[in-house]
């Protein structure tokens, strides 16, 4: 079946079975490989995207349900890396292998959208993505730093 999805502000056509996870429509049909496959069961968060501004795990989100929504992927943050989160992530040497970080960034963007000055408890609640490299201390510090910069 053919679907029209609005990804990062652009309408795109996808030809896929309706139950195909949005993750694979993005990666495999549309070539947007920034969104990562990690577990397929909405556990790890590597596939996190925004659906109408809300962080969603795209591996469990059928493509047909995404029709009519605004989808934002990591590619939609800023192509040139000028989004405050991208800059802080780079300056603070946050990623290690980096595979989980697209999803981490999308979870954090959603958090800061909802709660501009999050507490550690807010961070724990919103950002429960898995990072096997153990970048959590850096991620937490970077979130606080980004919140500070966004406030200024």
């Amino acid at each position, binding site marked *: 079946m053919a679907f029209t999805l609005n990804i990062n502000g652009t309408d795109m056509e996808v030809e896929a079975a309706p139950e195909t996870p949005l993750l694979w429509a993005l990666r495999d049909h549309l070539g947007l490989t*920034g969104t990562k496959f990690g577990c397929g069961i909405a556990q790890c968060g590597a596939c996190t995207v925004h659906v109408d501004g809300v962080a969603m795990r795209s591996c469990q989100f059928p493509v047909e349900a995404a029709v009519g929504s605004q989808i934002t992927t990591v*590619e939609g943050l800023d192509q*040139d890396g000028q989004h405050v989160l991208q800059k802080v992530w780079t300056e603070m*040497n946050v990623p*290690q*292998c980096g*595979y989980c970080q697209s999803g981490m960034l999308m979870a954090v963007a959603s958090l800061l959208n909802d709660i501009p000055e999050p507490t550690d408890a807010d961070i724990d609640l919103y950002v*429960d*993505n898995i990072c096997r490299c153990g970048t959590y201390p850096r991620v937490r510090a970077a979130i606080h730093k980004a919140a500070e910069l966004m406030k200024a």
Partner: protein
Amino acid sequence: MTERFKLSRRGFITAMLGAGGALVMGLSRPAVAATVNAEPWDSFGEATSFTPWLRMDNDGKVTVYVTHPDIGNGPLTQACAYVREELACRWEDIRAEYAAPERNEALGGVYSEVGGALAYFSGRSTSEPRRTAYMTAAAGARERLKSAAGEAWGVASAEITVSEGMLSHSSGRSAPFTEFLSVAAAVTLAEEPKPKTREEWTFLTKVDPAKIQIPEIVTGKAIYGMDIRVPGMVYAALRQSPVMGGTLVSYDFEAIRHMPGVRAVVEVKPTEPGEPDKMKAVFPLGPSAVPAAVAVIADHYWQARTALDALPVVWDDGPGAKWANTEMMNDAAMGAARKAGDNIELSVGDVEAEFKKGGKILEAEYLTPYCDQVQMEPLNCTVKVDKDSVEVWTPSQHTQQVFVVTVQETGVAPEKVKVHQTFVGGGFGRRVYGDDSRVAVAVAKGYPGVPVHVIWSREESVRQGRYRPLMGAHLKARLGEDGLPSALLARVAGGPGFFTRGLADTALPLVLPNVQIESSVVRDFHIKTGPLRGPGFNSNCFFLESFLDDMARAAGEDPLDYRIRIYEKWEDEGWVKILKVLKEKSGWGSPLPKGQARGVAIGNWGMGGKPHHGTTLGSVVHAEVSNSGKLKVHRIDVAFDTGRVMNKDAVQVQLEGGAIFGLNLALNEKLNVEHGRIVEGNYDEYPVIRMGDTPEIHVHFEALTDHERYDEIGEPPVGPVGPALANAIFEITGKRLRTQPFREHDLSWGGGV
């Protein structure tokens, strides 16, 4: 082939391809703007080069060739830093690229000869041979540029200074490097310059650049193995015999032939690899043996995956199915560890005579389970097999191993094999054997002429691992009159390929008067094992350092002071220095509320029985256990001795991540076996610590001894953090945890509730 390299030495700089694709990122942190090719594989084509390590282009870009895949530990950045130190180019003009293994082969092993057999492995980027190779190449380039400029300006080249990509002379003349590239290429130096000494460094150890690939990562542009898109590519979903060593009886393609996008089912037959004819494999090839497998090929991955789930497959489980459950295997390992060992790892004095003296004798048994690396990027590999050529795209930890495996598996001539190294979504040892690549090559052989992207589901990735070995240990010690151990007997056992590293070659047995260390292999364990962050060390350190805590308590001594007394006898002062730093910095000995305590442990990764080798690391873990047994880890302190550090921030983040990895390994990780199959398949069954469970981590640099080595940092925390936690838990609950993972234990104390 070596001849080709020699010839190419005549000219070092090429006027060739523009360095299109290089990115310059303006960032406020100093010196983070070097970058990496977004498609990080060797683009070295028609170029000639002064050195295989370095290329300069007419647009001022400097390309640094790196052999070992960056798995998040920073070798790309470190290689660029060496070049920056000597060449004095602009950091933002440097980019890294992987040195292709086929180029290594064509140049007679020019890359793999630096750093020995493990040259292409993700091992230490700070080793002296690597540093020398990069710095010599860059210094040679710099001196040739100076010579060319000196000639043009009519001044002595020694009077010319270099800075930020510019050549300058006191007469006021200056020019960018690019002005003299072609002239410099023809310069012959009377003598190749020596690399700067440490005292002369202005960049190394002074600037801690962040990883150069981060701008690629945070924009989603970094191409991991999973992200490879090659024209005409199809996808394969893979299922291997659920019991390792099993065989395929039948499958029914007709049942899925009609499904959307489905093209074929490829059957892979199990084969044992022999030795390759010409090339030397770096890691053993046995663990890369192809298992019985089927793969569904389809236009898109989700189609392949859905069809695979619907495909009727019948397996013959083979002999491994006799292991009905985990306990049977545990019992077999412990049974072997209770008997005299097959191999004597170390024998000093006479432990039995010492035990006969009686007195305080301790005896205990320990066990660690099978664990998977669960790296975030599931296994995958893309392969195109043609009649007389092969191309592979892989997120490997060892590109050269993949090259050898591919040549062997296809029989194609090495010069017709091309292996592209991609970004790697976590390694931790899982991606060194090349078993994943070999299966993908085998699948692609069954669907030739088309690039096939083979993807393991998370469950397939976890259940078809090369695991941390299941190991049992039987330990016995006698305390002498001074309270210190006068004899230590350790017998360990595990399946084929288990690791004794960190048992006989570490400081504890080397300072005791009577030591016997033995090992046995349980030959009919069918589960395949491999390196997992700190192989051997991550089990053996748990055994020794938990047992040592028991000894301290039996002697009535403070566990940290007890360790100081023991390790004072070892000639590497780093051990005691670490313990003293931890004592001071962690709050050791200061009062804590009831239900809280600190535990300590120390170990060394890589010392190989020698002082001032490897990395020694100690950890204090501050934990809390409620009466009902709920555990919370508040804080981890880490002090270490790598000798020296090259990039302090890189070390800091690796140690933070390693401490978390070690904590999770001890606390959460275990794979169970049922009728020979691995039970757990995904993160819901195999928990990994998340943000909210992460304790405060304090990394202390004060214990560095300044010994002249820059040793490894990835593995060291994974040994001591687990036993340090176990020791804290004992202090609180009186319960000695002798098996991992700790979450399986009832930690309630003081009557529960």
